[in-house]
């Protein structure tokens, strides 16, 4: 029977990692997600798993590379500055097609920034992040429950596509406590014939690399990755819609912003404003097509983000000029209230209505 607990997002994610058969966690302390390493340092050894505090995020991600290359379920987590440090390793993981789970509990930036929640890492997360042509599968939880659920999903998708998966959370979802139910999950049998575990006589040697020094071979590898990303775009788009059926206006928001927008939507509906909420769950692949369909029956969309306007570019790509796409955001770890968002919506309604 599934167990329900009251837990912090970060700890729920850590517990889910154990249940998801995560063989190894490598991490480095950084606010607001140090609980993950603390929780796993305590719990992983009880399950015979590997947990290690590395000397840096650079080391963490490369330990993940080694463990993933040996065919194990490996993960790391960090927050924005630490994730920046990992970008080199993430690019190598993507290039070498190694499955793993990386969690970014996003704080506000740039630079050292602040420890409060932010969504300023949207571009970094969804457009590559490190050097070269690659994408991560990006999952955006908006509840403690999803921080747990997306660990299972993340590992499964990573293994399915041999690609790193990034869970893009934030300092609020990671820190807040909510009910969480750990659904039964069966860890899939390991089937990684490419893993470097020692070469038996019965097969050719395996090697993990992202190096293809001949441009002809590099291009073939790039094309192979692109074909994979195309498949991911076709099969893995996930989103949630609330009240979009009769909506004249749509909030587009992910993660924490989506939660605030949900309340804003309720307030606006009480005032008789027909507004819905569209919440992308996968930020890559992005639900462009569904946004395009929704644009046919919507007056305008409002992208609400905790940054200076990043996802709004993808909303516009999806809508492709059919209707106006507006942006509203707070920065620096500050959050908009639901009332702020409703006020912005009403202002925009007036503006667009008067045209």
């Amino acid at each position: 029977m599934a167990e329900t607990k009251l837990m912090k997002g970060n700890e729920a994610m850590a517990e889910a990692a154990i249940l998801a058969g995560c063989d190894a966690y490598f991490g480095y302390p950084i606010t607001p997600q140090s609980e993950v390493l603390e929780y796993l340092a305590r719990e992983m050894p009880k399950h015979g798993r590997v947990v290690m505090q590395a000397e840096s995020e650079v080391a963490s991600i490369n330990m993940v590379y080694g463990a993933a290359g040996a065919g194990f379920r490996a993960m790391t987590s960090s927050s924005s500055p630490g994730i920046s440090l990992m970008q080199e390793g993430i690019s190598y993981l993507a290039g070498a097609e190694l499955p793993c789970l990386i969690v970014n509990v996003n704080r506000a930036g740039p630079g050292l920034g602040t420890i409060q929640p932010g969504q300023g890492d949207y571009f970094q997360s969804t457009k590559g992040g490190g050097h070269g042509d690659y994408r991560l599968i990006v999952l955006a939880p908006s509840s403690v429950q999803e921080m747990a659920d997306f660990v299972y999903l993340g590992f499964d998708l990573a293994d399915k596509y041999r690609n790193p998966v990034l869970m893009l959370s934030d300092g609020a979802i990671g820190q807040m406590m909510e009910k969480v139910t750990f659904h039964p999950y069966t860890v899939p049998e390991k089937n990684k014939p490419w893993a470097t575990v020692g070469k038996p006589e019965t097969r050719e040697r395996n090697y993990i690399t992202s190096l293809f020094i001949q441009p002809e071979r590099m291009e073939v590898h790039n094309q192979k990755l692109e074909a994979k990303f195309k498949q991911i775009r076709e099969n893995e788009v996930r989103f949630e819609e609330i009240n979009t059926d009769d909506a004249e206006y749509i909030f587009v928001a992910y993660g924490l912003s989506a939660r605030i927008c949900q309340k804003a939507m309720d307030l606006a509906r009480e005032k008789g404003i027909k507004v819905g909420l569209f919440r992308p769950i996968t930020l890559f692949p992005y639900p462009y097509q569904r946004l395009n369909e929704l644009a046919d029956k919507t007056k305008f969309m409002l992208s609400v983000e905790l940054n200076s306007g990043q996802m709004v570019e993808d909303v516009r790509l999806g809508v492709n000029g059919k209707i106006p796409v507006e942006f509203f955001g707070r920065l620096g770890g500050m959050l908009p209230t639901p009332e702020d968002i409703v006020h912005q919506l009403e202002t925009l309604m007036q503006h667009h209505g008067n045209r």
Partner: protein
Amino acid sequence: METVELTSSDVMPAVAPACKQEEFEMVYHRPATMVDVSMHYCPGCAHSLVHKLIMEVVDEMGIQDKTVGVAPVGCSVFAYDYMNIDMQEAAHGRACAVATGIKRLMPDKYVFTYQGDGDLAAIGIAETLHAINRGENILIVFMNNAVYGMTSGQMAPTTLPGMKTTTSPDGRDVSFYGAPIKVSELMSALPGSFYVTRQAVNHANGVRKTKKALENAFKYQQLHKGTCLVEIIGNCPSNWKMTPVEAAAFVDDEMVKTFPLGDIKVPKAEDLKP
């Protein structure tokens, strides 16, 4: 670097086909775990020789199916093209972190990194030092030729005082860049290091000692008692702007002044008990 697609047509085969067992005694052959291709290394370079020594040890110990190697960024980035074992190619300097990830998940495998001086002693010194400080049960093969090879001869952390490189055209000025890092001495101070030795392969005698050191280091992994670091002074004729013969002499005449050869840390008899 021209190509990685290498063919065996112009290399001596592992077993000379003209030799019939009854007529000749086989005294030397390619290690079975070496891939039968010609290497991209320059004439007189130490890498090919050290690759072979490692593979000889793997052969003799019969551990091909239990060994995972980690290649660096540098001239030996293609080590996995030559070593017929499972390998991972690490980002520049990160080999010891990658090896940590492998070894911690598979403690009974033999895991080694193969790294140059730029990779290990410059960009990767943090990963190296911390891996050794944790006493990771891995072997670090450290190829020290005092220059960046793959990028054609820039100054390394191990470049000798006064040694000319493309980025120290007037010779390494220690008042500006500091003195060369003596990696083995530095790492031997860490309790996590179990066996630290510095060898050279410019003479047959050194080759034999180097092989013995590698053999010791592989065997010590079975003890799970700490990190083995085998530093090997490599000859780099191309970037030293020397003939292979001159480069071999340079090791004796100059390199060993800064990097004296021999064991730096050896396990005591009681440490060798399982």
